[in-house]
């Protein structure tokens, strides 16, 4: 049985058809072609599929696609404007805060949600907030530095 869903992704109204079993991640990637959100586990343990749902940070693998009806969804594809990277994206490049890069979209979405809630986090705040985003390449050091650098820049902007 297919269900039609009308939703908003990164500010754009979109419609898709899905099965009731499908996750929001499946719909973003498979139905809408937004493959920036990654599936690392499918069980909410890695954070690679992080998106915002009505402003809350969630794992899109733990949301049913049908729950997107009428919702506002934010993904990594919505972070940059046409000509400008989000300060977090720029900071990740400047601080070499990514190696393989597959966890990066989820971490950027999560970090953005953090800075909206807490513009001046401690390193510990950053580390606990991002504990649900596994990164196997960097050891997190450069990620924490990049988030702090972006936070400082955003505070002074």
């Amino acid at each position: 049985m297919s269900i039609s869903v009308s939703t908003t992704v990164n500010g754009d109204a979109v419609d898709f058809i899905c099965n009731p079993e499908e996750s929001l991640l499946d719909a973003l990637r498979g139905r809408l072609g937004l493959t920036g959100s990654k599936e690392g586990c499918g069980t909410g343990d890695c954070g690679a599929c992080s998106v915002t749902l009505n402003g809350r940070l969630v794992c899109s693998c733990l949301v049913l696609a049908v729950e997107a009806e009428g919702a506002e969804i934010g993904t990594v594809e919505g972070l940059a404007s046409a000509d400008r990277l989000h300060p977090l994206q720029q900071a990740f490049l400047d601080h070499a805060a990514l190696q393989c890069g597959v966890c990066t979209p989820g971490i950027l979405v999560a970090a953005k949600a953090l800075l909206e809630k807490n513009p001046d986090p401690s390193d510990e705040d950053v580390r606990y907030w991002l504990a649900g985003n596994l990164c196997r390449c960097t050891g997190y050091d450069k990620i924490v530095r990049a988030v702090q650098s972006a936070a400082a820049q955003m505070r002074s902007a």
Partner: protein
Amino acid sequence: MAFDSHQKREFKQVGTRPPRPDGIDKVTGRALYGADVSAPGMLTARILRSPHPHAKIVAIDTSEAAALPGVKGIVTGADFALPDDEFFADIAVNVMARDKALYDGHAVAAVAAISPAVAAEALKRIKVTYEVLPHVTDVDAAMRADAPVVQPGRAVETVPAGMGANVTHFCEFGHGDVADGFAKADLVVERSFRTAATHQGYIEPHACLASMTADGKADLWCCTQGQFNVRTICATLLGIEASQLRVSASEIGGGFGGKTTVFIEPVALALSRKTGKPVKLVMTRDEVFKATGPTVSTSIDVKIGMTKDGRITAGEAVLRYSGGAYPCGTVDMGAQAAFAAYDLAAVRTTGWNALTNRPKEAAYRAPGAPQAIYAVESVVDELCLALKLDPLDVRIRNAARKGTKSSYGPTFDDIGLLATLEAAKAHPHYTAPLKPGQARGLSCGFWFNFGGNTCVSLNVNTDGTVGVTEGNPDIGGSRASISLMAAEELGIEYDKVRTIIADTSSLGYNDVTDGSRVTFSVGLATIKAARDAIGKMCGRAAKIWGIDEDAVEWRDGAAHPAGPNAGQFPPMTLAEIAAVSFQTGGPIAGHHEVNVDGAGVSFGVHLVDLEVDSETGATKVLRYTVFQDAGRAVHPDYVEGQMQGGAVQGIGWALNEEYIYGRDGRLQNAGFLDYRVPVASDLPPIDTVILEIPNPGHPYGVRGVGETPIVPPLAAISNAVSRAIGVRMQELPMSPPRILKTIRAARA
């Protein structure tokens, strides 16, 4: 040879930290990984896996699954060639079981269907009749004569007669008279250790998209550390010619050695061949844990003798590794690496591999070395404690250096161990005060590093920019390093160079991205390809100027007339030469193809401070510093990144990561919830100190850096924990229940 070797020079680009060329794609979500592409008319495949650790496959009935609407094709082991060569045959049988399932999760059949839901439903309708066999998952148990036999007749000729049927491999290394050495010692300590199998834990599960047409032409997109190796294996397993199979490497979401072989690619190709449609196959995380390659699990005995003043008189180690259900030579590398940090008159290591009902081992960052060095460094630490000696002084005293006959045979050339140890000693971390309950641990680490087959093309564009085409997937920023070396050699700006990774039809063979080889080997080939292009550009300038080619030299990105008779001409830049290349003979390119040797070995030293909660056994890592010789840090950010990432993987290995098998032989923790890789809040900052002791075998002095950092953390953490609780830990991981039990046992 002199031209190839390291020469002192001033670098303009190498050593800087420009943004990586693939960075924007990766921070915007545009970069395409294994599971991110689709094809029109594509089918979805799923694999059926054995729930038994060891079972005879009596029959597979696929008729009910085949009858399900939407199912387009089913394959089993019978659909794959069984190559004569054992290396390929083992991969073939691992990709799809034949007569026996050898571990929990072993693939037995696969389905391609019109949707994931139909494929999943079809799997339930495949009826496999198993005859369950006794199983063995522990390496020591597997070595016994009465152990269930995983595969008979797999021992190599070096295995002495009379060993258990699961013993496949034996090796021995060393020199000198160890008995005599132990007799000279004031104290001899002998201990046994165990380490659990761990997984690379890359965040991206294996994924591929295969498309094969009726005339045998095939395209494969997959996440891999080596597209050429995938081509070789898949062509062999499917019985097709290499030229007909084009493999493109996607962006890769981590590998660490685990993506140096194939698991699903031949299955997707076989299903595509059978159905005539593109087939996408993506592993679930559960499948990644159950059916890809973790490390060996080990059991190790170490005996070391030391004099009162800290001189090691002899060292001996017996390593028992299991690489799962297939023969595995990883213990060779462990046995060679175990004592590599020491200058020893007498050393002997012996290694064994035994088959167990576990998945086939795959390489993981310095395969075999972390376990062996953990055991050796633990005993060295215990000797230092017992003899009241400073552990860094003892390592400095016994450090291997230039001219040392290594524990694995060859004599060391310039190596950076001593400098690394001295840097650790001079660092404020080493003398920082510790609070009550805190302890400091340290360990040396070593890895060989490799070179290998490498092929690079470098095209000079008419607008003065340069394209570098290489064949090694970029896992940790290597495109940036390669671009830096091309720019350095050519004398142009970094952002004038774009490095891309070619598919298997667009470039000659390149070995897998492994052995810390890419910055070293691909860098070397890039430098030489640049020199090839420079030679051609000098030739064009000579023609334009009407002088001998020999009278032109390349300096600062331009051809200059050189020598007394060259004449007076203003230099011609690369852009100027490129602009008229059509008029002076045609496009300009440089190439280099080589099987690179001369990768310099790499040493590291790690320092850690931690505290243990004596009521719960929980360990908190407080401070961590990595010291490592990089030869030459081409892009220091990514060198640091390797050092930090490797250290954290090692911390995970030391504290929490492990394959847990139940009595039923099934993997208990096939997910990131219970296979516990470190999370951000578990860790302090990881500080790094890069040393640069040039590798004599590389034009810029580069050494591989990727693998060594995972080696020291196991012992560094174990030594610190042991000092904190006052009892020697002898098993990894040092999970809280294990630490608490050790504390309780010592108090009782």
